[in-house]
């Protein structure tokens, strides 16, 4: 079990380059802009963080691919994938380790939004249990996006392609509950399947979470999204590593 060895190296890599700092700053700036300008945080006159959390799916949609695009593409391009995979590390340790490091990094960025939590507590008397649950839910959703990104990155040597693919597939997942996606299936698919597709939507699951209701069902949903996409990552790596 050398999972921690992989996680440690990956995390160190994030902070050895400007990537980590640029990402964190952009994430903090954008999440504040969304909350205060688009979310009308002050105008609502309510002591909660719903305006903050409700924009997270859209924020993640283009920020998470920026983290995940390099996960495998870069390793393939520079040849370090060959080095990594000939070390006596299990496939699970490698795939899970790289994912966990990215997830921890995303979690750290999320934690650094704590001033907004202090602000809302200073201004009013919010339900901190709800806020805590929302943070956990947001982090789970980031994990879902990252797992999709991991698989897309394994598909190609090009980080740009990985970015675009991850953005697109994530968008489909976010929008799965929207009529524009469902209409495409409604005409020819049994209603049961259309409902299933709607059930796959990140937004459907996150909207409950952003109001502070973190049900076991939503938790399991995000965990299975992560598990499925990481398994897919492993399969894609096997198929493509010789290219």
């Amino acid at each position, binding site marked *: 079990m*050398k999972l921690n*060895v*992989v996680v*440690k*190296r990956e995390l*160190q*890599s994030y902070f*050895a*380059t400007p990537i980590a700092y640029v990402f964190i700053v952009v994430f903090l700036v954008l999440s504040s802009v969304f909350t205060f300008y688009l979310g009308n945080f002050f105008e609502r006159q309510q002591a909660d963080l719903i305006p903050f959390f409700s924009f997270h799916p859209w924020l993640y949609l283009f920020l998470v691919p920026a983290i995940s695009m390099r996960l495998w593409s870069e390793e393939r391009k*520079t*040849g*370090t994938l*060959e*080095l990594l*995979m*000939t*070390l*006596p*590390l*299990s496939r699970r340790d490698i795939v899970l380790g790289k994912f966990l490091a990215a997830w921890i990094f995303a979690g750290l960025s999320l934690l650094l939004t704590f001033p907004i939590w202090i602000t809302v507590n200073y201004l009013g008397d919010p339900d901190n249990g709800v806020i805590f649950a929302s943070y956990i839910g947001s982090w789970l959703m980031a994990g879902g996006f990252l797992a999709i990104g991991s698989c897309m990155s394994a598909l190609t040597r090009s980080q740009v392609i990985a970015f675009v693919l991850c953005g697109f597939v994530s968008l489909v997942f976010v929008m799965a509950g929207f009529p524009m996606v469902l209409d495409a299936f409604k005409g020819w698919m049994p209603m049961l399947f259309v409902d299933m597709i709607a059930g796959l939507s990140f937004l459907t699951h996150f909207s409950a979470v952003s109001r502070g209701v973190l049900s076991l069902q939503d938790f399991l949903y995000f965990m299975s999204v992560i598990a499925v996409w990481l398994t897919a990552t492993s399969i894609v790596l*096997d198929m493509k*590593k*010789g290219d």
Partner: protein
Amino acid sequence: MIEVSHLTKEYGPFTAVDDISFELVPGEILGFLGPNGAGKSTTMKMLTGFLRPSAGTVRIWGCDMWKDSLTAQSRIGYLPEGAPAWEEMTPLGFLNFVGEARGVVAGRDLESSVSRAVSIMSLESVLHQKIETLSKGFKRRVGLAQAILHDPDVLILDEPTDGLDPNQKHQVREMIKGLSKDKIVIVSTHILEEVTAVCSRVMVLSEGRIVSDTTPAELLEKSDYHGAVAISLSDESKADEIVATLGQLVGVREVMTDGQQLVVFPVTDDGRLFPEVFELTQKSHWPVDSVHVEKGRLDEVFRRLTEGADR
């Protein structure tokens, strides 16, 4: 020991490695020779468990590379082609990571393994610089240090001296030769002298097949030049006369000239040609700088064995 049996790798209709089998015992240093695209790197990628073979097996001390890859891989030190490394890391961080991944226990064991590899590869001066800032030679040495870090039973090096200056090449060859006798080393190279300088066994690959598997000395014996007598003249003017005289000797099959250099080929390689030619040069007072027996020319053997592969 390493047992490779019927190893094959196909990419669609293209066969990169075609039914290769061989065995290696401790103490052997095997050189992989072959033109680009002959399957050297692909074979190494399968030996180290990176690529899954289309058919065939690799066993490292009886341990199957695909059934128990972690045990098999832990006995191997591998330098992939181009010596890849995470460029944002320092050599120290890189070596520590590889050591931990290889199961060297963190603490004093890891420290002593790393410092041993660092001193063998003379990396002390760059330990704390980012790898991306290092010269090509240093990058290669970082890759080599990584491969020997855990004192592996099997060392697989894909073009280890590529990009090194002559001094560094010499250093790496000495390092390989200096490994204890219970190790197995596999080296791939384009550089023909390297094979005679380092290897105890040579395998020539062409179009994914083994076309020759022998010792460097035996490979040299396959050369047309093996046993021929080379004469270096100090004066070109008498060359025609000398060639004519030599051509009349009984044991001579052919005399080749290239300016001041003459090569006399014997009919049969029985070692009797040299004394005869030498005596003649003395008696006739030819303007001769040197006379010596050729051991053979590897580039000529190499070309003959792999001919057609480029076409």
